[in-house]
C-alpha cells in the first residue's frame, strides 16, 4: 500500500534514527512511502501559540502537497502528526478559517480540501493495515527475553483517539507481542514526558521524565520504546540531568519503536540508527538477543 510520507524536521537530524528505522521497517512490511516533495516544517507547538491562521496555512501546505492519487499521509513525529490532523480538522469545522487558509495556499498555487488526506501514524498503519499475521510472518528474529516498555506519549493518542485509545493505548503493546518481546506493564505509557517544558521549566519537566523512567525501572523493562522524537529526546538526552536533579541513577535506554521492530524483522542494528542514542541500547539488546546475525535476506 502506498502512503505519502512526511518525515518532519526532527527526523532529518536529531532523530535521524527514527527516520532511518521508519524507512527500513516500512520497506520490509510492504508499506510504500513516498516522501512529500518540498515539504516544510510543521511549526511544532510554536506556530499555533503565535497565530492560528499562519500556523494552519504553513501546515496545510504540506497537506496540499500530497499527490491526488494518494489519500493517506504518514507522519511518524507525534507533533507533526497532531499538527497535520488538527489543521485538517480546523479547516473542516470552521469553514471561514478553511477558506482563508486556502486563500493563503492559493498564493503558492496550492489548495487543500479538508478531509481529503487522512493523517496516520506509522504505528496504527502497522497495527491496522499490515495486521498481525503479516507482521508475525515477517519476524526473523523474535525478541524473546527482551522486556520492553511501550511509551505512547500524548500527542498521537490525544485528543483524537483515532490512532489508538486515548486513555490506555495498546497497539504498540500488541505489535511487540507479535514480535515476540515481553511487553512489561507500563501504567504511565500515555503520561506526558514534559514536551517543551524542558525549555520552560526544568524542574517540572524533569519530574515528568523521572516518573516515566521510574516506572520502567519498577517494572524491570530493558528499554523504553518511543514514537515521538521529543519524548525520546527528553527521556534519553535529559536522563543524566534528571539523575543529577533527583540524585537518581537511571540508566534506561530509550529508543524508537521502529528501531527495535527492525531488529525483529531481521535488520542489522547499523541500518536502524542504533548508536545514536545517548544511553546506549546495544548492551542490553546484545545481552538479551545475542550478537546481531549477518543481514538475512527474506
Amino acid at each position, binding site marked *: 500500500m502506498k502512503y505519502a510520507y512526511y518525515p518532519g524536521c526532527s527526523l532529518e537530524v536529531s532523530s535521524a534514527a527514527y527516520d532511518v528505522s521508519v524507512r527500513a521497517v516500512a520497506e520490509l512490511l510492504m508499506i510504500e512511502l513516498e516522501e512529500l516533495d518540498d515539504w516544510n516544517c510543521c511549526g511544532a507547538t510554536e506556530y499555533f501559540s503565535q497565530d492560528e491562521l499562519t500556523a494552519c496555512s504553513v501546515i496545510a501546505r504540506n497537506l496540499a502537497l500530497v499527490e491526488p492519487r494518494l489519500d493517506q499521509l504518514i507522519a511518524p513525529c507525534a507533533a507533526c502528526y497532531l499538527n497535520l490532523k488538527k489543521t485538517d480538522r480546523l479547516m473542516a469545522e470552521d469553514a471561514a478559517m478553511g477558506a482563508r487558509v486556502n486563500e493563503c495556499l492559493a498564493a503558492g498555487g496550492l489548495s487543500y480540501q479538508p478531509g481529503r488526506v487522512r493523517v496516520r501514524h506509522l504505528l496504527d498503519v502497522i497495527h491496522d493495515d499490515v495486521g498481525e499475521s503479516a507482521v508475525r510472518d515477517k519476524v526473523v528474529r523474535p525478541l524473546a527475553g527482551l522486556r520492553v516498555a511501550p511509551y505512547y506519549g500524548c500527542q498521537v493518542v490525544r485528543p483524537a483517539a483515532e490512532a489508538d485509545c486515548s*486513555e490506555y493505548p495498546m497497539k504498540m503493546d500488541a505489535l511487540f507481542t507479535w514480535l515476540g518481546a515481553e511487553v512489561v506493564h507500563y501504567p*504511565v505509557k500515555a503520561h506526558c514526558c514534559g514536551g517543551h517544558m524542558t525549555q520552560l521549566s526544568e524542574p517540572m519537566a524533569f519530574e515528568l521524565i523521572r516518573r516515566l523512567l521510574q516506572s520502567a525501572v519498577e517494572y524491570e523493562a530493558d528499554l523504553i520504546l518511543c514514537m515521538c522524537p521529543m519524548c525520546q529526546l527528553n527521556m534519553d538526552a535529559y536522563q543524566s540531568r534528571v539523575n543529577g536533579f533527583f540524585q537518581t541513577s537511571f540508566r534506561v535506554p530509550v529508543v524508537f519503536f521502529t528501531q527495535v521492530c527492525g531488529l525483529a524483522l531481521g535488520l542489522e542494528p547499523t541500518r536502524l540508527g542504533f548508536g545514536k542514542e545517548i544511553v546506549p541500547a546495544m548492551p542490553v539488546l546484545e545481552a538479551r538477543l545475542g550478537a546481531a546475525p549477518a543481514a538475512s535476506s527474506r
Partner: protein
Amino acid sequence: MAERLGIYVCHCGSNIAGTVDVEEVARWAGTTIRDVVVSRDYKFMCSSLGQQMIEDDIGQQKLSRVVVAACSPHLHEKTFRRACANAELNPYLCQMVNLREHCSWVSTDKVAATAKAKALVYAAAERVKWQEPLEPMPVKVNPNTLVVGGGIAGIQATLELADAGYHVYLVERSPSIGGHMAQFDKTFPTLDCSACILTPKMSEVGQHENVTLLTYSELEEVSGSVGSFKVKIRKKARYVDEAACTGCGICTEKCPRRVIDHDFEAGLGYRKAIYTPFPQAVPRIPVIDVASCIWFDRGKCRACEKLCPTNAIALDQEDKIIELEVGNVILATGWQLFDSRKLPQFGYGRLPNVFTNMEFERLCNAAGPTSGKIVLRDGKTEPESVAILHCVGSRDVNHHEYCSAVCCMAALKFGHLVLEKTKAQVYSFYIDMRPNQKGYEEFYQRLLEEGMHFVRGKVAEVTDATRQPAERGKLIVQVEDTLLGRQRRIPVDMVVLMGAMEPQPDAKEFGLKCGISCSMAGWYTERHPKLDPVATMTDGIFIAGVCQGPKDIPASVVQGAAAAARVQGMIAKGTVMIEPIVASIDEKACSGCRICNNLCPFSAIEFDGEKKVSRVITALCKGCGTCVAACPAGVITGAHFNNRQILAEIGGALWDASPVLEDARAGADEPADEEAESALSAR
C-alpha cells in the same frame, strides 16, 4: 347538500395567540372558506366552556362538521371527538389543526405563522368535508396478561394482577425470577436485606394460583392488538423434568463441572454446569448450561441423571414453543451493567483490585462468594482503604449522558457497609450527590457522621504507577478535588466503580417486536414522559421499571403497580374501542391482481380464490394505508384517510399557492373566494 362547518380557533392562553393572530384566522375562515357557518376564537377550547361552545353550536347551528384549530391531536383529539359525540355528531366528523406544536411554538414571525395557520385551517376544512361517520370497533379484552421480565417491577405487576383475580403469564429469560435485586446485599436507605424483602414476593409469585411462571423462556413473537394479542414463547430446554424435580439439589452438588458464574455472581464465584442461580431461586428447578456441561460437550458423565432420586434429568428435552392469547403485555425487562472496561483509565479488568458495583454487592452479600467479607481479589486480604467512584459511564458524553439515578445512594450504602464490616477508610469521589427521595438525604447525613470521606471531583485515573515509595502496592486515585481546588493522589487498596445502568443489549429489537420504540438513550419510549410513564404508543403494551429509564426499587415497584392498574382497568371494562382506521376493498372493482396481498406485514389481506378478489381482514388491519396507495386500480379505501380527504387537504393547504391545473383538485371544491382568484391570476 352542502356541509355546515364550525371552525374553532384556540388561543391556548398566549401559547398560540402570542404568535398567531387567532382572531384574524377565525374571521378569515368565516369569510373565506366555503360552507363555514360558524367561526370562533376562544381562549381555551379544551376547557369545559370551550367544549360546551362546540356542543351548543352543533345543536343550534346544525353543524355537520367541526374543525378545532388548537394543539396537537395527540393531546386533545379525544376531547373534541367526545364533545361532538355528546352533541350527537359522529366523532369522526371532527378534525383538529395543529396550530401550537407545529405553528406558534416553532416560529417567532407572527406574519408567517398566521399565514401558515390559515393554510393549515383551510386544509382541515377541506378535508373534513369529505370525512365520513365511523364507528369505533369494540374488541373484547382478554383477561389474561403477559408480563415479560421477572425483576421487581415485573413481580409487582404480576402480583397486583394475580391478586385481583386475573391470570398472568410471567416470562423470564434467566432460570429464576428476582432480577438484579436478588444480587444485592442491602437496599438503601433502610439497609434491609435485599433478598429478605424480595424472596417473599418471589415465593408468592411461584405459588400463586393465578400465575403461570415461565422461566428460562423468551418472548419470540407478538401479533394482534390491544385486547387480543397472540404471543409465542420459547420455553428453553432446562434438561430437567419440572414435574418430577423436587429441588433437592443433589445434581448440583455432585456435578463435576465447575465454571465461573458470570451472571449471578458477577464473575466472582462459581457454579456448576447444572445449577440454580441462587439458593432462593424461584422455581427451584435447576438448569443445565449446555456450554459447560460435559455430557453435551463430549458425551460423558451424566452424573446428575444417575444420582437424581426422582429421575428428573431429561437430557433429550427440547425447547418448547408455547402459544398464548393475552389482552395486554407489560414489559419489565430491566437493565444491564455498563462495561467498565470501556473506561480503561480506571483499570477495570487490568488492575485486580478494581471492582464493579455488582461485584461489590456480591462481596458484601452473606450468601456471596466470600460469605459477606469485603476482601481484595486474593480472597483474603481486607482492604485498609476503599475508593468509590461515582458516574462510571453515566453523565459522560462519551458513553451515557444520563444519570443512572441510583449510584449515589448505592455508593453511600457501600460506604456504610465498608465502615461496618471493616476497619477501612472509605472515600466517595462524586460529581454531585443526588440523594433525592424519601429518607435519602438523611442517609447521606448519616454517612457524613459515620466518617465516610467525600471528595468532589471526577476521578481522572486509577493507576498503579507510583511516585513515592509509600504508594507501592496501592492503587492511586488521581483526582482534582474541586472543593479544595487541588490535585490529589489518594492511595487505596480497593476501588469500586459505580457503573451505569444501561438498556439491555437487545432492548431495541425486542421493543420493535412488540411495536414500541426506544428513546435516543435506548430506554423504552413512554406515551408521555410526565403524565403517562407506563403506557406506550402502542395500546395494550405497557412498560415498567428500569427498562423505561434508570430508577430505584420503590420507583420500579410503583411503575409495576401502575401498569397492572391500567391493565386491570381495561379488563374490568371488558372491551376496548379500536379506532376504525382500516382499509377495505371494493370487491366489485377489484381485479384480483393481488399486488396488495404481500404488502401487508400483518397478513390482513386474504385472497378469495373463488371470487378471485382480495379482501381485508378488518380485525387484523392496523390502518397503515400502504395497500391503499399501492392498488393500481385505486379500489382500496383507507377509512378516515382516503384519497379524497387527503387530496382535499392538500388543496386546502396550498390555497394561497398558484394552482396550475384547476381540475387537478380531484374531489375538492374550488375556493370561490377573491383571495384565491387573485392569486390565480397574479402568477
